[in-house]
Structure formats: structure tokens, C-alpha cells
């Protein structure tokens, strides 16, 4: 949660109060004399009064703690759709997240995958009913990348915020290498991929001999 209270011009001596990180307002009272807010927050909480940082009561987490917290946050997001995921599928997804967001391997100059991008990924996965689990990656600017391979054929989807996706694929058709790319909303993804028979990646890929 992020709470920002702005005063009407000239009325209050605190021009803006902002709380960052997670939290919730547990009570709020407003009257002619002003406002009273009781707020709760977790983790590192930063308060800014009149544009000056006033205090940081809990130290900012280090890189290791930050990536660990992020991993948990993405798993909590997954719980929102968990009833639509097969148990083994979900367990595999969590293993992929653990590998992707490994503090020892992660390049901390890259943005962590955003929750908005991961939400697009989850909604896409349920929408596609993909029986096969993609491998996971991330772009430097914090987008989740899902990739399915079937033999030499590969489908890669970059999940952008707000149910928007960018995709690129390469497959062999009658001995010829064909590639395609596009951008669409998740809702139109199947239509966009239909000429390339996407079911080979999502469900039907025969096991490698």
C-alpha cells in the first residue's frame, strides 16, 4: 500500500505524508479540524513529511533479503489462482521461481520481475490452460519471460503489465525454418498463434525419444 495525504492549500503544516512499502490504514477519522490516521505497515517503512525523509524505522533489506522477499511475494500472488493450477504444476512453477530468483545468481543491476508482469503471466497460464510448464526467465527491465520448446521449435512470450504480451516463435514447417513475432493482449494470444499450431508447445509435444 502507498498512502499519500495532500492538504488543501494553506490548511496544514505537513504538506504531504507518504508511506511506502506494504501497509494498511486501520482507522481514519476526518473532521473540520483535521484528520487522524492510524496506519499499520510492515518491513522497512519510510515516512516523508514536507518532502524530507523523517525516519526509516527498519533498515532497508539487503539484496539477498530483497530477492527472497520478492520470491515470497510472487508465490503469494500465485495463491490467488492456485485453485486453477494442478498441484505438480504449481510445485514446478515454485521451483522455477526459486531458481530464477536465486540471490547468488541474480544480477542486481537488473530490475526484479514486477508483480504486474507476473500477474499477466499467471492470468495467461490459466487462460491458456497450458498442461506443459514453460521455463521461466526475466528481462532486465523486470518482465517475466515464459518459453516452451518442442524439439527444435520454440515459443517465447514476454509478459508485460496489464495482460499484454509480446511473443516470438521459431518452428520447422515442411523442412523450412519459419519464425514469427507479435504483440497482443493475452485474450487474443491464441488467435494470434493459431497459424503456428500452438498446442504443440502448450500440451501436445511428444516426449523426446
Amino acid at each position, binding site marked *: 500500500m502507498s498512502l499519500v495525504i495532500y492538504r488543501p492549500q494553506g490548511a*496544514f503544516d505537513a504538506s504531504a*505524508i507518504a508511506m511506502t512499502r506494504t501497509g494498511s490504514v486501520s482507522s481514519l477519522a476526518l473532521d473540520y479540524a*483535521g484528520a487522524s*490516521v492510524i496506519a499499520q505497515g510492515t518491513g522497512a517503512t519510510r*515516512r516523508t513529511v514536507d518532502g524530507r525523509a523523517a525516519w526509516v524505522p*527498519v533498515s532497508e533489506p539487503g539484496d539477498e533479503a530483497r530477492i527472497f522477499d520478492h520470491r515470497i511475494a510472487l508465490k503469494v500472488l500465485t495463491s490467488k489462482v*492456485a485453485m486453477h493450477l494442478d498441484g505438480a504444476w504449481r510445485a514446478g512453477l*515454485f521451483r522455477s521461481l526459486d531458481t530464477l530468483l536465486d540471490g547468488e545468481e541474480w544480477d542486481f543491476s537488473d530490475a526484479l520481475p514486477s508483480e504486474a508482469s507476473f500477474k499477466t503471466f499467471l*492470468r495467461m497460464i490459466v487462460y491458456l490452460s497450458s498442461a506443459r510448464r514453460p521455463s521461466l526467465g526475466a528481462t532486465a527491465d523486470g518482465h517475466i519471460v515464459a518459453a516452451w520448446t518442442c524439439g527444435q521449435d520454440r515459443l517465447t512470450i514476454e509478459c508485460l503489465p496489464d495482460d499484454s504480451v509480446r511473443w516470438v516463435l521459431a518452428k520447422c514447417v515442411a523442412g523450412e525454418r519459419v519464425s514469427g513475432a507479435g504483440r497482443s493482449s493475452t485474450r487474443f494470444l491464441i488467435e494470434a498463434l493459431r497459424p503456428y499450431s500452438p498446442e504443440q508447445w502448450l500440451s501436445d509435444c511428444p516426449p523426446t525419444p
Partner: protein
Amino acid sequence: MTQPYARAPITEAVVEFRIADPLSDAALDVSRRRFAKRYSKAEQLMEWQLNLQPGNSQVGEPHVSGFRFTNGEARYAVNTGRSGCSLTALAPYEGWEEFDERLRETWGVWAKAVGRQKLTRIGMRYVNRLDIPVTSQDEPWNRAEYLNVGVDIPSFGHPLTGFVAQSFTRIGRERFGLNLTASTMQPVLLDHGALVLDIDVYADVDVPQRDADIWTLMEALRSYKNQVFEACITDAARELIR
């Protein structure tokens, strides 16, 4: 008994133990240390008060109101605070047996950490979300097809696009309280609508204090919670989660 529905719509199951007198700093700290050993992620819960008045705005010093612990798979979370302790299970809900086992462990750890405390309320809250398939986000759907609880308003020529219905009553020969909330929410899935059924059953009168009585109460709360759930959903809803 295993979970009766293959796709249980429970997004959150919470059991809370509330106590009469706020915990001391020392007791809160002991509970923090005990749970920190068992859970992967620990967060400090801060509370602060802001008073905004013309010419005299004050921001109170923050104080620690409790701690939240989450396990590595983000399936369970424990909150321990000055007013008590709670266990939360997130989806996928794997059934009462698993939750009960974790609950007994949580109670055991907390009770040992903070010593004997007078319980004033024991609550069991299950938040359910029904995902209603629609062919397009704008397609109207009828709440009454899935839930027996909601609001009815006169027709103004357009279908109801959202509602919140809240009721408070006593059940179990008035031994228990029931807070029931039904509402629409922003859909979580594409091409779905979403209905929330939030069932909060609690004991706040003659609250048991001995372990054996607490677990007997827990079974009763669970039984009432299940009865309320079944009474509130329709066969069409059952089909969605079967």
C-alpha cells in the same frame, strides 16, 4: 475427510486467538523468536498515528504492534501481536486435516511462548472466491445463480454490476457469532466474473481456556462454517468448484 471440492474456492483460511490483556514486550519478543525459527520470512508490523490539524500536525512515534511470519512456499502465515495470534492458510487449501495440524502446532508454540493468557475470542474465517466464467468481460451474469446471499434492488433498466452484502447474526443457539459478507470483486481471471463469500464464525462467550475444549470448539466452528458455506452457495456454484 478430504477436501470435498477438487477446486476449493478458499483463498484464505484464518483462525485467530484473541486475548484479554495486551502482551508485554518480553512475551511478544519470545513469541517472535519461537516463530522465527520455524518460518522463512519475518516481518515487523509497525503502527503509527498521524494527527493532522491546521497549524499543529503531529506524527506519533511508530511502535511495534506485532510480527508476521510466512513460510517458504507462501502457504501459511502466522501473525503474533499484542492482542493475540492467528494462523492464515492461503490457496491452495488442502483440507482441514492439514490446516488443523498446522493450527495445533501454531497454538502450541504460541501458548508456550507467551504463557497462560485469558482467551476472549476464538474466530475462524474462510474467504471464498467463486470465479464465474463469462464469454466477455461485459457479459452480465446473475449473482443469484451462484450465491443465495446478496442484495436485491429494483430494476433500473441495467443489470447490477457490483454489490456488497454484510450481515451479523448469532448461530449455534447464540453461542457463536457469524459475520457474513458477500460481494463482487475485480475478476482475478480473464473472461471471468468473481464473487466473494467471506464467512467469519467466532466464539466470544464462554470462550474455552483449556486445550481439549479449544479443539472441541474448533470442530464446532468448522462444522458451522461448512453449514453456512453450503447454505450460501447454489448447485451451479458447486459445479464450478467440483
